[in-house]
């Protein structure tokens, strides 16, 4: 299975998603040069200013420029989300691959773990871990990756199960390939396309769960700006500065929708079906 790019680029929604995502990523990447203000510099005299030419999205309770924070938050939130998806895909592919390949007791154990993980809300697990550990960006990526891998594991397991009876695997085994080589060189590479689709959709999921975590007050500590964290801070000023609550959420929605459209486009371009799942 390969990605047929002609189908992907023939899908207007997927292309729109890609364009929006590239724009968001560029804005985040060049945030220090695009924004005239520092995201963390406080100016008490300018607190809670409504949007104006000097501060297009207004200022927050400490007089920080909301647009600067929004763009810088994009760096944190997008990098985090990609990291989370990478960790989840790594763990999920490995465990799912082993479960599908070995079968028997290993499969039973891993599948039981997957089922169990899926029956606790991932957000609740992440909240507990974040509350009890001193949070750094790396730790947050690991925590969110550790609660998100089971769906990938389930997908890869199913893929490997269906692949391992195929002739090319039999041929490789006949030439003397061991378990590790069979799994890493022959089985997992053939499961890559569906995993790319799942990984893309996981990035969207990670943006949402990280924002939710930050909104609830369990995200990265201040003064780091994240989209969810900005919404959390805006809560106290609904009456004086409602605009602070509008834009971060708008950007989250934009980013998540863009990634979802792209993921759907990729799914269509790999499965060959044009309908819904």
């Amino acid at each position, binding site marked *: 299975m390969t990605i047929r790019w002609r189908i992907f680029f023939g899908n207007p929604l997927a292309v729109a998603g890609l364009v929006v995502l590239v724009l968001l990523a560029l804005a985040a990447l060049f945030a220090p040069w695009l924004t005239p203000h520092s995201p963390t510099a406080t100016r008490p005299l300018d607190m809670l200013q409504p949007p104006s030419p000097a501060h297009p999205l207004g200022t927050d309770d400490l007089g920080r420029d909301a647009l600067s924070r929004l763009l810088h938050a994009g760096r944190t939130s997008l990098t985090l989300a990609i990291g989370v998806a990478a960790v989840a895909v790594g763990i999920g592919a490995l465990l799912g691959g082993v479960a599908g390949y070995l079968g028997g007791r290993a499969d039973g154990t891993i599948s039981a773990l997957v089922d169990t993980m899926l*029956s606790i809300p991932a957000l*609740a697990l992440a909240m507990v871990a974040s509350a009890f550990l001193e949070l750094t960006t790396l730790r947050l990526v690991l925590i969110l990756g550790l609660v998100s891998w089971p769906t990938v594991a389930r997908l890869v397991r199913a893929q490997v199960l269906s692949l391992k009876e195929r002739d090319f695997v039999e041929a490789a085994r006949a030439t003397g390939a061991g378990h590790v080589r069979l799994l890493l060189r022959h089985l997992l590479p053939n499961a890559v396309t569906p995993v790319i689709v799942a990984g893309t959709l996981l990035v969207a999921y990670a943006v949402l769960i990280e*924002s*939710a975590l930050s909104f609830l007050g369990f995200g990265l500590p201040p003064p780091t700006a994240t989209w969810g964290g900005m*919404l959390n801070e805006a809560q106290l000023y609904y009456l004086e500065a409602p605009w602070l609550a509008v834009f971060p959420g708008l950007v*989250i929605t934009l980013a998540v929708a863009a990634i979802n459209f792209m993921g759907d486009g990729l799914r269509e371009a790999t499965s060959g079906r044009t309908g819904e799942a």
Partner: protein
Amino acid sequence: MLIYAARRLAGAIPRVLLISVILFLLVNLPPGGPADIYAADPSASPQAVERIRELWGLNDPLHVQYLRWFGNMLQGDWGMSYRERRPALDVVMGRLGNTLWLTGGALIVGLAFGFALGLAGAWTRSHLGRALAQATAVVGMSVPTFWSGTLVLLFFSVHLRWIPAGGMGSIGEPFSLTDLLWHLLAPALVLGSVYVSQWSRYIQAGLTGAMQNDYVRTARAKGRTRGELLMRHALPNVAIPLVTVLGLEMPRLVAGAMVTEVVFSWPGIGRLLTDALLGRDYPVVMGTLLVLAVLVIVANLVTDLLYGLLDPRVRYG
């Protein structure tokens, strides 16, 4: 059917056990455990901290601690809430009903609008209409509830003053069902809206697929109208896969409810978990997590049973 039910129930027990182990380790392994809270108090002497560790059995090996904790949980002794100074079991159970109101309301909203939109989508033959429905669905599931909820609050409560600003009842008024439902309206709509888009998409796809079956063609040959075909012949066949989807979505519905509760000051277990974590109220944290997990497992069990009830083939599989 009874054997099938018993088998599903037996399958759920190891899951509860495994979850209890994971939760126990998650809460007890990181530094900053219960005794450390006291240790952080500068007026606490090392001897006093040691006495607390001894008294609470925190010096025992981890598996001994786990077995004692789980045994106590089973017997209904969930420990005392540090913050509320009453049994954690009472604290958690007192909030559970409120979360059920919210998730139930959101389920009804999601299913009602989901079916309406899904039917409309399957009814229309225009390509544009379907593409539009699909795009709306993706955008709908991309909107974070904590943001849409905030906007609803800002506009309809703060600005227009149409709806209450949160909570489950008007202050100073006796409890009444209408008052509760009035307060439930906005949070249930916000939480349910996430699923409207997802489920309508699913229902539409299912209906479109079912309409191509032979039995539908037969019915059409007998002169049934398009509406009759959709409602009487295609719709029942969407119910079975939809039940599966509902079951799979339960953890996310519960997670969504947790966030929605915080936005709308709804006193459910999601808000309880947030408060308990921030206040390091360990007995309540453990109790809440276990209740959340059991909630999802019970929901999955109900799904399985419904599945067996709707599709006789499953029971004898």
